[in-house]
């Protein structure tokens, strides 16, 4: 009798194991801060669902986002979540679009507020836990698998020198102009490249129009530092002596617009969905003027 009971127990256990689905979750240690960007990149999150021949039921993906102390800050609304039919005896590969469908994830408290305002969660370490549940009773169909990740949005550099609308002395600027900017925050785990771009604003051009339509006078990649000394090798003499010329009068001198484009280690813009999508910092303009002429005119 004992043998029969043991055999029955064994068979039940085996059947139970066979009807479970194995899942394997991988998450990038430092994924994009904007959660909606996860779906655009296949390397951010992958869930491999491997089921045995015995699996004959539909499942839903139950996802929870937790802080490291275990507090759940966001979870799938299973009632509206998509239903999947595992392929018996085969593996299915899913990504962030399936595992973290933002239209079905309900966040709470300050995290919900931050997400609605910014599309990002507050900078912190988080844990994502995934489990498959059966339809319709939501009974567990797989073990819970968790992975931790760190979220912090990159803030692009702020341009410091030359400051906005600063007037530089022609006699110095024609030999050297010092550019300074603040670094990307937080410091990236891989080196970022600061692409320094300087454009001349021609007559009858608006500032941003020059940036969007001219060839840059300087296009320099800089790694590891936030300063560059440019030797322009330009005659800063205005094109014409016409005093009514908008950007090229002796008093106003020449006008330039500069910006920094921040690139990741693959040479791609660091923040592709923030603002202009090109990871270009807010540009600033500066003048190169002949201070002797300007001084005389003032007198």
């Amino acid at each position: 009798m004992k043998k029969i009971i043991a055999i029955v127990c064994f068979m039940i256990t085996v059947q139970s194991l066979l009807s479970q689905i194995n899942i394997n979750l991988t998450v990038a240690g430092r994924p994009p801060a904007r959660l909606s960007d996860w779906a655009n990149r296949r390397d951010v999150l992958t869930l491999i669902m491997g089921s045995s021949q015995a699996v004959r039921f539909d499942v839903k993906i139950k996802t929870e986002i937790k802080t490291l102390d275990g507090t759940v800050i966001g979870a799938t609304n299973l009632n509206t979540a998509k239903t999947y039919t595992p392929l018996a005896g085969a593996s299915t590969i899913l990504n962030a679009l399936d595992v973290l469908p933002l239209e079905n994830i309900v966040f709470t408290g300050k995290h919900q507020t931050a997400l609605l305002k910014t599309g990002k969660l507050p900078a912190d370490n988080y844990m994502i836990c995934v489990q498959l549940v059966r339809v319709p009773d939501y009974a567990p169909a797989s073990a819970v698998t968790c992975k931790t990740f760190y979220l912090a949005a990159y803030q692009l550099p702020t341009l410091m020198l030359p400051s906005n609308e600063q007037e530089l002395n022609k006699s110095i600027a024609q030999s050297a102009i010092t550019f300074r900017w603040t670094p990307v925050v937080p410091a990236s785990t891989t080196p970022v490249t600061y692409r320094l771009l300087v454009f001349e604003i021609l007559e009858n051009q608006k500032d941003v129009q020059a940036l969007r339509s001219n060839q840059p006078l300087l296009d320099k990649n800089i790694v590891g530092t936030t300063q560059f000394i440019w030797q322009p090798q330009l005659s800063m003499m205005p094109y014409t002596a016409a005093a009514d010329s908008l950007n090229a009068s002796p008093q106003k001198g020449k006008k330039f617009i500069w910006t920094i484009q921040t690139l990741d280690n693959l040479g791609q813009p660091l923040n592709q969905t923030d603002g202009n999508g090109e990871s270009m910092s807010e540009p600033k303009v500066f003048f190169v003027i002949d201070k002797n002429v300007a001084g005389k005119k003032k007198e």
Partner: protein
Amino acid sequence: MNKTIIVLFFLCCATSVIAQVPKVSVSGTMGISYEGYGLDRNPAGWTGYTPRRPWNQVRFNFMPNFQFGKNFSLPFNINLAALPTNFAGPYSGFIPGGPKQNFKQWMTNPVNNIAVNPKYKWAELQLGTQYLRYSELSTGDIGVFGAGFDLKPGQYRIKFFTGTSQPGINYFAGPPLPGITGAFKRNNWMFQIGKEKEDKYEVAFNFAKGKDLISSSAPPPLTIKPQEGFVISMITNVHFNKGWYVKLEGAQSVFTTDLNTASSLLIKSFEPFIKAHTATIRDYAATGSLGKKGKNFDIGISSKYFGAGFQTVGYPYLQPDRLDYTINTKLNTWKNKMNIVASLGQRVNNISNTTLKANQFIGNLNWFTQFNDKWSLNVNYNNFGFQTASGLNPYGIKNVSNDLGISPTYTWSNTKMMHLLSLSYNYSKYDERDVLTGLTTSNNTHTALLTYVPSFFTKDVTPDFSLMYFYNDVPMAKTTLATLSSGLSMPVAKKKVQLRGQLQYNLTKLNSFKSDNNLIASCSVDWKITKQFSWNTYLSTNYFKYGNSVIPAGANYLESTCRTGFQYKFDTKKNK
């Protein structure tokens, strides 16, 4: 295409009106200019220096303002370039030899401007490409090709404009490299309603929207996402007696950073203006300033807040998630012989805590004193500091910049001429801390400039001379730069031709490498053929020869720029 027809229609109307009405005055300018660029690099095949201007470019401008009587004016603003040279933005990659732009793309390319703004009394029609600035937080940076109006009946202000800020551009990988970034077609509209009394008050509401059409480019851009944004703002400006003023603006934006994402019921839409997706964010911004402007004393406090999710299509380069506050002051004293301009401010980045909080301190001081007829002194000091917490790194970022400049000037004269001698010295120190090692790198720069400008009372020749010394010291790199420069300006041919020339020699030395030599020569000839018609020519050449700091040793290049153009100045009023 319809918009193009409207523009052409107006051009025809304008021409016919001019032909019919005899009393018409015209002001403004028109002209054509050619710019040529040359670069000769040696040894052959060396690519250490890249061209930085288009090889050839022709620009045309037509900007007359036809005034019919007192009430009707017809200003044109047409600026065209023969070749696209776009580098940044969605048009980037349009280069000679690559795929051509179609007519619509050419019309809306920011390198070209085609606009006409007929105005009758308080009503202005706006047609073509317009760079309209409604307010600091709604729209202002981007040119939109379309149609709209600006009405100012009495104290009321009603403005509306709709059009396309960029057409659809297909992604193109190349060759020629770097290919074309591509763009989605973006349609914009903007509306303002308000009341204003000049120099007294202004109250207005602004609405601005832009939306990309997903199907407008095939293949679509690789890195740019289709977006949609809507912003509503309110501005209040009040000017009080004795120069006091208050300026305020508050705004809310609803922005979808990627229209390819799914619609969402969890995020509140702002219908009928914008429907929420999972990539939709909503945030606030505000600016305010308060101060007093006077003849000898100005003081002002200004503050700007941009929430982390605040984005507008009208200012695509705006940096959100920050709080700035600044105090500015200007003082003229000692019978206007002393002038002090100072500002002090702080910027806090990441107020939303979506990344590490960063603090920036910014301080500037410029102090000018005219001691007597001969002596004057200018002192300036700039400081900024930037600091963040360490985050995952052992140390936080800490950058500190200090710049001090002292510039005494001495002038003296006799019966024939006046002399100006100016010395300027600037010391700059920039410290950067490494977040992994905690070590601080100091970057020190010394700059000295001596300028001499003689002015002759009886001659028209104006020469100037300057000598500059520049030294920069960072670990592993010491750079010394010396520049000798001289300029000359003089009128000839009964003052119909203005000649100007400049010669500049630079010597650069990096560490123990052999010195680099650089000679820059430039001149301009401005010939006033008639009162209205002028011919301006500008020539510049730059020869640079490396010592042995680059491979191959002795590499050199000759860069030359030539620009010549005719300009006609309309001025019928003066003729009469």
